[in-house]
């Protein structure tokens, strides 16, 4: 692999712009050329993934590239560091899975041109968030992500979808407003330096810092679905399933989580954050969201909404690890961040397959589905085990390190919270799986066609990867270690 300075810049720029360029080209393809559009989408999603991998690997090898652009008194810069590399990797890789799945799921639906175009735009925006080098660039791509995902949320064009879209925009723009105020306050203290140069606010002391942290957390917490800022997420489930799976289980919400990681570790830094009294409250907020999210999930009948609340809960696993300010905790958070999406996407993909083949979206009516779609439900069961955090699924390791980190930080109640939530997660979904295989009714099921294979394949691959990484966690460990080394020196 070429690691010259120019090559690195090239990888960075290409990784970022693949999505945008692809989206523009897709918009220009006539509406009826479906195969061409699918091929183009896949090519650009793949190229985005390839260049993100190249960038990430170069970062792990210790040589990230930098692209800067001065605009007035501010500077936009792309400057990936290990956390950004990890996020960029996950996002662009999972995008491929979601793209292939979309080919199958969206096969007979309308509005595909807009869908695929903005799907690709969102990829660019997410990669931009990951590789952003300073706060202002992060904010730029954060806002662009909101805008790029809006047309996907309102895709169904029903009144319900429009209402969900409006809620989505209002919540996210309000959060972004809070972030902007916090960024400007930070700028007045410390300017706009790159994240790679150490914590931005290092050495600053001011009574305002506690409030500043709160403002950042509230701002990023909208996307990271911290309660009570999570209300947009269940509403956004009106979007097509691939959108819900990728964006609202992985990309958009991870942008929020990533933002929180940046704030706590790259802006404040571990020592400064530890000194603020508000930092002791934050883990409790995360713990509350973990429990409340999963309890509310129990009461949902629509499968996607149950998954949405479970997402809310699981995102706070990562945030809990971040807020412990311990290396083990952060390792657990990163482990969770890397392994959880595989299983979450599996669950959503299964929900989508069920919805497309049988037309059922409500759990109470899914009795006996397992007989018609046995492989789907097998994947579902495997993913449920992952949500509960049991071996052989990879999320076990994330939970393990999170618990270790909580205990190490002297915060053992959180280990308890994690254990309890694991049990409740199991309670959420095991009954569904059991119902699916037991029930005496067999719902009507459409014939499986070529498109269905495109939906099955990614699902199966995701499960396989989860099991493999669960048995051999060493595969993902280097990424986790790179991040903890980066922040804890």
């Amino acid at each position, binding site marked *: 692999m070429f690691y010259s300075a120019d090559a690195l810049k090239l990888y960075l720029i290409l990784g970022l712009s693949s999505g945008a360029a692809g989206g523009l080209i897709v918009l220009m393809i006539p509406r009826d050329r479906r195969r061409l559009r699918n091929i183009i989408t896949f090519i650009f999603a793949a190229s985005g993934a390839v260049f993100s991998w190249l960038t990430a690997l170069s970062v792990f090898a210790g040589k990230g590239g930098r692209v800067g652009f001065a605009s007035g008194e501010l500077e936009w810069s792309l400057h990936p560091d290990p956390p950004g590399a990890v996020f960029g990797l996950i996002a662009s890789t999972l995008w491929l899975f979601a793209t292939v799945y979309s080919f199958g799921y969206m096969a007979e639906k309308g509005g595909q041109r807009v869908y695929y175009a903005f799907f690709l735009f969102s990829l660019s925006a997410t990669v931009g968030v990951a590789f952003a080098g300073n706060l202002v660039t992060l904010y730029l791509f954060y806002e662009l992500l909101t805008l790029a995902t809006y047309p996907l949320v309102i895709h169904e*064009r029903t009144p319900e979808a429009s209402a969900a879209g409006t809620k989505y925009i209002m919540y996210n723009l309000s959060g972004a407003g809070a972030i902007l105020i916090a960024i400007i306050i930070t700028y007045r203290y410390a300017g706009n330096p790159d994240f790679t140069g150490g914590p931005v606010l290092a050495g600053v002391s001011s009574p305002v810092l506690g409030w500043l942290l709160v403002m950042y957390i509230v701002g990023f917490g909208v996307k990271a679905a911290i309660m009570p800022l999570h209300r947009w997420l269940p509403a956004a489930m009106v979007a097509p399933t691939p959108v819900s799976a990728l964006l609202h289980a992985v990309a958009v919400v991870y942008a929020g989580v990533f933002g929180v990681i940046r704030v706590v570790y790259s802006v404040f830094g571990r020592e400064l954050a530890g000194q603020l009294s508000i930092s002791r409250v934050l883990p409790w907020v995360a713990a509350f969201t973990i429990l409340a999210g999963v309890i509310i999930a129990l009461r949902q009948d629509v499968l996607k909404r149950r998954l949405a609340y479970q997402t809310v809960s699981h995102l706070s696993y990562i945030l809990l690890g971040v807020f412990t300010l311990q290396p083990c905790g952060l390792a657990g958070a990163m482990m969770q961040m890397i392994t959880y999406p595989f299983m979450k996407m599996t669950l959503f993909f299964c929900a989508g397959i069920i919805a497309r083949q049988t037309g059922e979206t409500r759990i109470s009516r899914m009795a006996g589905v397992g007989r018609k779609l046995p492989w789907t439900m097998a994947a579902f069961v495997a993913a449920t085990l992952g949500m509960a955090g049991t071996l052989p699924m990879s999320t076990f390791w994330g939970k393990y390190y999170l618990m270790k980190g909580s205990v190490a930080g002297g915060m053992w109640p959180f280990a308890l919270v994690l254990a309890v939530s694991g049990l409740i997660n199991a309670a959420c979904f095991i009954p569904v799986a059991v119902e699916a295989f037991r029930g005496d009714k067999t719902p009507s099921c459409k014939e499986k066609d070529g498109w269905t294979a495109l939906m099955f394949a990614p699902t199966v691959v995701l499960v396989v990867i989860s099991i493999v990484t669960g048995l051999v966690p060493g595969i993902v460990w280097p990424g986790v270690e790179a991040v903890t080394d980066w922040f804890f020196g």
Partner: protein
Amino acid sequence: MIADNLPAFVIIVPLFVGVVLPVFARRLRLVEGLVVLAEAAGLAGAGFLAYIVFAQKGTDWVYQLGGWPAPWGIELTVNSLAVFFLLAVMAVSLPIALFTIGNLKEEVGGNRRTARFYTLFLLLVGALAGMALTNDLFNTYVLVEVATLSCCGLVSSRGTPRAAEAAFTYLILATLASSLVVIGIGFIYVITGHLNMGFASQGLAEVWQTKPHVVWLAISFVLVGFGLKSALFPLHVWLPDAHSSAPSPASAILSGLAVKGYMICLLKFLYVVFGPDLMKEFSVDRILVLAGMAAIICGAVMALPQDNLKRRLAFSTVSQVGYIYLGFGLMDENGLAGALFYLASHAAIKSALFLSAGAMISATGKKKISEMAGIGREMPLTAAAFTAASLGLIGIPMFSGFVGKWYLITGSLDTGDFLPTVIIIAGSVLCAAYLFPVIRVAWFESPQTANQENTAQLKGPGAAQKLALLMLMAVIFILGIVPGPFIALAKNAAAELLMFR
């Protein structure tokens, strides 16, 4: 000779061409060509003056009309503020003039009336250029009157009864405001004996402690007068009717530039003539900040229920004017620079919004937002211009509104007061609330079954209109992506204003 007298020429050329136009009324192409030529000349002149200001940092070029020195003659100062606003006026009015080509005859009714529209248009542009440059109190009043009458004429140019009613209301209220302004000027003249802004400022500094009531009266009259003209909340009631009854290019220049011209005059009165110390003494800064915050919120809230697209945009102007007044009241270099930058940015954005709205209304014959479903498919460029301008107004980075908001928030944080910051952000969210539905309806809703009456008379935007929209989008993006020189100019202007005692 032109270079030596450039400040005067920048004002006179539009005025002269405007007055001469009705002679050629029958040859519409020639008229349109002359208008564009005059605008281009104005832009070139403004650019050259900007270059001069950049080149000689520190010393302003003080041009004396007719060679008469102050305090007997009228001065035109070419300083950063003047050049900034002059550039904004010329850069935005040129696309608006381009937009009117080929579009105006049916709307206004005939060649002769179109020529008269252009006359009023150019008179307005000349008056705005004068407002940027002038350094004399009564000269300001004269230019304000020229602008007022041109604006009223533009509002009534359609000839419909509703336009006449809106124009009459606007005329009465605007003349009321002008009388307030002239009496304010009268008070200043009575106690200082000067009409030149610099000399009046010195006179006021000497005299205000012995005659505080007169100064207070003068400030109040001037503030209310210019506030009424620039639709500062709660003096904004004339604006929605006036701006929605006018043809779209007229609405564009009214909302985008005319309102801002009066604000620049007020800025000069408050900062140059009275000075920051007197402003603080009489709490003018607090009043501006409070009125600005009220305008931001109330304007946005009133825009939400409007179904008529142009009325919604008119209320949006009321809200955005509040941002600029908020910046004026902050009395801080960053805040003032932000307000000035926001002023220029909003001029381009609002013009783009009104022009694209006008194109959409012309092409479909419908005025309400709910009836314009799916128009993005039929007129992609126009709808894209509307979308880009809306995103600029909301404050997305890479668009000009973001830079303005950045400096406004920095300025309000400098003063230590947190409420303006929150209001600025709340205003952005409300802005999204009233603009996103339009974007959603335009792009993401299917058009209802076509029931076009008068389809033969409706037409889509032509080449000139598309070029105009592209130029405005270019301005928005340039201000958003490479604002460096413009921010430097705005900061210079702010520093100069704050240095006056």
